[in-house]
Each structure stands twice: as structure tokens, then as C-alpha cells.
């Protein structure tokens, strides 16, 4: 569609135009129908009136012959708004009546004139206004004279004019209405779509915090905007995560990588000292192992946050996992002088992934042992409790170490956050983040609390179908 005005490219304008045309056609058809019906009715009325006149005149003729007929005719012709009356001789010469001249050929017909004809009345100016049309009945009298009784068609003509004017007015109003509709509906829709387009352009331009406008009308535009906004929220959350990961990778992986590289370089320069070289190499391997661990944890968290396949979950025995992990860590805890005890309800089952829960729990227990051992408490202890409450299963690991100040607790589960107090402890700083990701994956949450001393980390699972 070349050179189509922009306005016509909008759906609203096209619809308006289409409706306008449809309505106009309907209106024209309706008017034509009404008009023709009315005209037919008027014509029928006219013919009836003429027929009555004719029969009246016929009776006069029967009563007294031609003179009575002419008298009756002339009497009627003098009345205001009278019909047309005319008597001619067989050659068409006007003998009597109120018609001065008549369209030639009309008198040759017998019965009803098949179409309106022009005529002129007596005593009228021969101007344009004096030309009339009429329908008439033409009768041959027994003496071969011609009688014409007709009726002027001025009235139906006027009626037709009125209808035509009404039609024009209606069409005009419809056009105006269509314009109005387009203006209020089309323009509004157009404007909203333009707003959405403008907002999307800004979003595409990089401003991911912008959202599409929602008018509050709750219509389809709003629903569309709301859904797109929800999608944008998800995208920006993922994007935010990605940004954070890359920033953290840059920080927490580059630092040890730099250390690694420097150490290898230093070892290369001291080639003659074999023992030092060996030590440097061993440290390099240890460092890269730590890097791999960190990297694996980042990947795992990302995978968990992106959503795991449902195939990986099944009914698992939480009590057994608690027993496993406590048993796994008990000797290590004892070696560090930490008392590790478990108090678990038996056979608590949920839908979950044994590996993931085991790993998350061991991360938390590992932290708890480390921090309580490093704390000031004289008899460091870690307790693991598993309880089934109404609708939820709580797996709590409590230590009596230094704890985490309330203000920092939220941050503690963020990736790579190692609170100042723990900077000296080994670890990737991903343990709690991983546990949190595992809990989110299981539809649960990770709660950090602590009263007085120590930290309490609770893995809260929604109770499974067995619980």
C-alpha cells in the first residue's frame, strides 16, 4: 500500500472506515426501501382517489349525459387543490377542464397513464414553476370524446425530497460519528500502543528497570502489559543474577587465578631450587582445586536457580540424610573439639533430591562446626534437629559460635558474601548461597536466626505428600 497515510495504517481507522461504509450502504438501502414503499402507497392512494372521481363523474354522465358531466367536472375543478379534469374531442382539442396544455401523447393512452406526464393548468404563468407532473386515467366516452381525470404529483415529489435530504443528513451524521469514534477509541488505542512501543524501545535501549504503562482499566491492553511486565521482571532478575555472577567471578576467581599465575611464575624463576618448585606446584594444585570447587558451586547455584528437571526429585528420607551427614561430620567435629549431636524425628519423608539436600546440610554443618570451634565458647557444640510441624518440616542446625549480627543475616546467604568476621576462614563463601538455592529449588526457604550467642540455620521444607 504505497503512500498510505499513517492514520489509515491503524486498525482502529480501518475498522471505522469499514463500519462507516457498511452503515452507509444499509442506510441507503433502507431509505430506498422506505421511499419506494411510501411512493407506492401514495400512488395507490392517488389512483384510488382518481378512480373515485371517475366513478362519480361516470354517475353524473349516466344521469344527464355530457352537459351534467361537464357541469359536475367544472364544479369540482374550481375547488382549491383540485384534481385535473379535461374533456377533449376525439382529435385532442380541449373542450373543457382546468388544464391548459398537456404533454402530447398522453391522450392516446387508454386507462392509467403508465408514467407521470407534464401539464399546465389554466391561469398559471408559463414559468418553470408552472410545470407539473401528474398521473391520470384516460377514458373514451361513448361519443368518442376523451375524459381525463388526474392528480398532481407535487406531494410525492416533495416527500421524496424530504427523504433525500434526510438521507444526506444521516450520512453526514454517520461520517461525523465515525470520525468521533475513531478519535476517541482509535486514537486512544493508537496512543496506548504508541506508549507501549515507546516504552519497549527504551527497554531495548538498555533501561531494563522501565515497565510498560498499565492504565488500570483492566482491559486487554492492561493484561498484555502486565504479562509483558512480569516477563520483564523475570528477565531482569535473571540478568541481575548474571551480572552479579560475572562481577563475583571477576572478583573471586580472578584473585586466586592471579595468585596461581604469580606462584607459577616465581617457581619458574627459581628453577634451581627443586624443593621450592615442588612446593609451589603443590600449592598451585591445591589452589586450582579450590578454584574448581568455587566454580562448581557457582554452576550448581545457577542451574538450581534456572530450575532443575523435575525428574531429579523423589521421596527421600530426611531423617536418614540427617543421620548420614551427622555421622560423616562427627569425627571431624570431635577432632576440632566440637560436640555434634542430632535430634531427629524418624522417617520424615519429603519430595526432594537426596544429593542436593545432603550437600546443603553438609555445607551448613561444616560452617557451624568451623565457626563454633573458632568462637569464644569454651564448650563449642553444634546440634542438628529435625522436626515436623503442621505443614512444614524444619531441619535446624544450631551452633554456639559468634553468630551473625541481625543486620548481616540477609546478606549472609548472598553469593560470595563472607562476612568480615569470617574472612580468615577457608571456604568459597558459597556454602549458604548454595543451601539457599537448594531450599528455593525444593519450594522451601532458609531461615537464619540466633538468640544471644550462636547462629541457627533452619532449612524449612514444605511437608511432602507423606508428611
Amino acid at each position, binding site marked *: 500500500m504505497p503512500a498510505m497515510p499513517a492514520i489509515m495504517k491503524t486498525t482502529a481507522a480501518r475498522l471505522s472506515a469499514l463500519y462507516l461504509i457498511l452503515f452507509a450502504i444499509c442506510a441507503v438501502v433502507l431509505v430506498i426501501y422506505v421511499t419506494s414503499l411510501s411512493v407506492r402507497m401514495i400512488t395507490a392512494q392517488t389512483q384510488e382517489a382518481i378512480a373515485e372521481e371517475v366513478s362519480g363523474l361516470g354517475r353524473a354522465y349516466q344521469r344527464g349525459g355530457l352537459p351534467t358531466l361537464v357541469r359536475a367536472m367544472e364544479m369540482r375543478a374550481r375547488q382549491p387543490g383540485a384534481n385535473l379534469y379535461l374533456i377533449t374531442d376525439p382529435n385532442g382539442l380541449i373542450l373543457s377542464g382546468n388544464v391548459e396544455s398537456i404533454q402530447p401523447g398522453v391522450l392516446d393512452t387508454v386507462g392509467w397513464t403508465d408514467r407521470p406526464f407534464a401539464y399546465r393548468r389554466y391561469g398559471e404563468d408559463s414559468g418553470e414553476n408552472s410545470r407539473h407532473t401528474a398521473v391520470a386515467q384516460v377514458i373514451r366516452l361513448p361519443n368518442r370524446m376523451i375524459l381525463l381525470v388526474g392528480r398532481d404529483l407535487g406531494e410525492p415529489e416533495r416527500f421524496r425530497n424530504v427523504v433525500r435530504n434526510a438521507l444526506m443528513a444521516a450520512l453526514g451524521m454517520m461520517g461525523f460519528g465515525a470520525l468521533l469514534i475513531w478519535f476517541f477509541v482509535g486514537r486512544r488505542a493508537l496512543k496506548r500502543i504508541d506508549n507501549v512501543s515507546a516504552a519497549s524501545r527504551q527497554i531495548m535501549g538498555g533501561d531494563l528497570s522501565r515497565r510498560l504503562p498499565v492504565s488500570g482499566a483492566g482491559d486487554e491492553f492492561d493484561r498484555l502489559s502486565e504479562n509483558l511486565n512480569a516477563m520483564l521482571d523475570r528477565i531482569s532478575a535473571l540478568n541481575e543474577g548474571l551480572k552479579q555472577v560475572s562481577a563475583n567471578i571477576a572478583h573471586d576467581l580472578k584473585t586466586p587465578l592471579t595468585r596461581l599465575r604469580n606462584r607459577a611464575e616465581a617457581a619458574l624463576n627459581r628453577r634451581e631450587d627443586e624443593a621450592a618448585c615442588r612446593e609451589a606446584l603443590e600449592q598451585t*594444585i591445591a589452589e586450582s582445586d579450590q578454584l574448581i570447587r568455587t566454580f*562448581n558451586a557457582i554452576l550448581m547455584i545457577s542451574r538450581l536457580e534456572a530450575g532443575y528437571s523435575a525428574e*531429579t526429585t523423589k521421596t527421600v528420607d530426611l531423617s536418614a540424610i540427617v543421620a*548420614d551427614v551427622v555421622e560423616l*561430620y562427627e*569425627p571431624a567435629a570431635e577432632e576440632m573439639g566440637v560436640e555434634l549431636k542430632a535430634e531427629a524425628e524418624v522417617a520424615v519423608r519429603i519430595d526432594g533430591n537426596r544429593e*542436593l539436600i545432603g*550437600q546443603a546440610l553438609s555445607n551448613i554443618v561444616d560452617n557451624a562446626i*568451623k565457626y563454633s570451634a573458632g568462637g569464644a565458647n569454651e564448650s563449642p557444640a553444634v546440634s542438628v534437629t529435625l522436626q515436623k510441624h503442621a505443614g512444614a518440616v524444619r531441619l535446624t542446625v544450631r551452633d554456639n559460635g559468634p553468630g551473625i549480627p541481625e543486620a548481616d543475616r540477609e546478606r549472609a546467604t548472598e553469593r560470595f558474601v563472607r562476612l568480615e568476621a569470617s574472612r580468615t576462614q577457608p*571456604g568459597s563463601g558459597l556454602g549458604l548461597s548454595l543451601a539457599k538455592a537448594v531450599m528455593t529449588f525444593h519450594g522451601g526457604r532458609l531461615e537464619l536466626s540466633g538468640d544471644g550467642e550462636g547462629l541457627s540455620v533452619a532449612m524449612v521444607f514444605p511437608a511432602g505428600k507423606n508428611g
Partner: protein
Amino acid sequence: MKILVIEDDREAAGFMKKAFAEAGHTADIAPDGESGFALAETGSYDVFVIDRMLPRRDGLSIIAELRSKGNATPALILSALGEVDDRVTGLRAGGDDYLTKPYAFSELLARIEVLKRRAGAKDIETVYRVGDLELDRLSHAVRRGGQEITLQPREFRLLEYLMRHAGQVVTRTMLLENVWDYHFDPQTNVIDVHISRLRGKIERGFDKPVLHTVRGAGYMLRAD
């Protein structure tokens, strides 16, 4: 031992070949899935090491087809995908062990050596003996030099696994996988502490050590 390595990374494959040679094994390298499958079908290998993502044909389909043709040669899958479900699909396809990249060569070597002897007669033996150490799998009794040693259930399973693979290096992750049945990486030295407890029970009061630490790799139960 003859090993077939199907690995498309030339440098990694070359390194493996050299390192296997140093450990006394010979390794053939196949750089893609098709040639790897052709070599594997000859049936002249003791162990396969198969990368999961290969050009021309993926590792899992190679293993699946070998298994369907009755080839039971133990296969270790190497993969950059280390998630729980990836491991499960790998083992389901017929792999015998799964190792995530990046890995320590000592870990790969230890696992390969265990795989090779996996099919041995150890499973049907009811009593394992290493030197004067004796473990009865039925009565759960452990004796050394005729002297009864009391072990916790987990310690028993730990010793059982070590004795089944006596003379072979067993890594910490192998222990966690086979004794505890978890596949994650314990961040601290939890396994070491279990080992040293066990060591205390089976070595205290005896002259000769049997449970040796292999530096940078793991542990080995061996009577000198």
C-alpha cells in the same frame, strides 16, 4: 592395562596418554565418536575412557551401543556436565563410573584401576585378607593377627571397601561415593578424619602400618 581414550581435546588426550604410560599402562587415543566406536568394537581394551561431548557421535550413544552388542568392557565417562541428573543419565546409559571435568589425573587413574578389577572375583569372596588383617563380610568380624577389632558399621563399610580394593589407590571422592553414597565434594577433611579413626583401630598396637596415605591422591590398603 590397555586403555582406549575417546577424547577430542588433543592436548588433554596427549597428556592422558603420557600419564597413563608413566603409570605403566598403554592408551590409544580416538579423536572423535565414530573412530572411537570403531576402535572400541575391536574388543582389545581393558577400560574405556569416554568423553561425553564428542564430534560426530556422543559418548553416551557409543556406550549404549557397545552394551547392546554385548561388550561389557568397563567404561568411565568424562564430562563437563557434573550435575546430579547428568550423572544419572550417564550411568543409566551403561557407564560404570562418571568423572566431572576438571579432574585430577590421580583421581582418573585410581578410578580406572578400580574399574579394571571391578569385574574380579572379590564380590563373591566372603573373607577379605590383607597381610594379617582379615574381614569377614558375613559375620562382620574384623581381626588382625587373630585379635578381634570392634568397628562401627560405617567403619566396617569403609574398611570393606578399602580391602576390596587392596593395593589400589582409593580417592576421597571414591570413598564418599561408595561408602556414603553421596557425590558432592566435602569441603573439609571429613574423610581424612574417618580414615585416621579407622587407622587408629586397625594399626594401634601393631608394628606394621597397612593403611597408607598416597600423597596427592588418596589412600591404599596394602601389606608391605
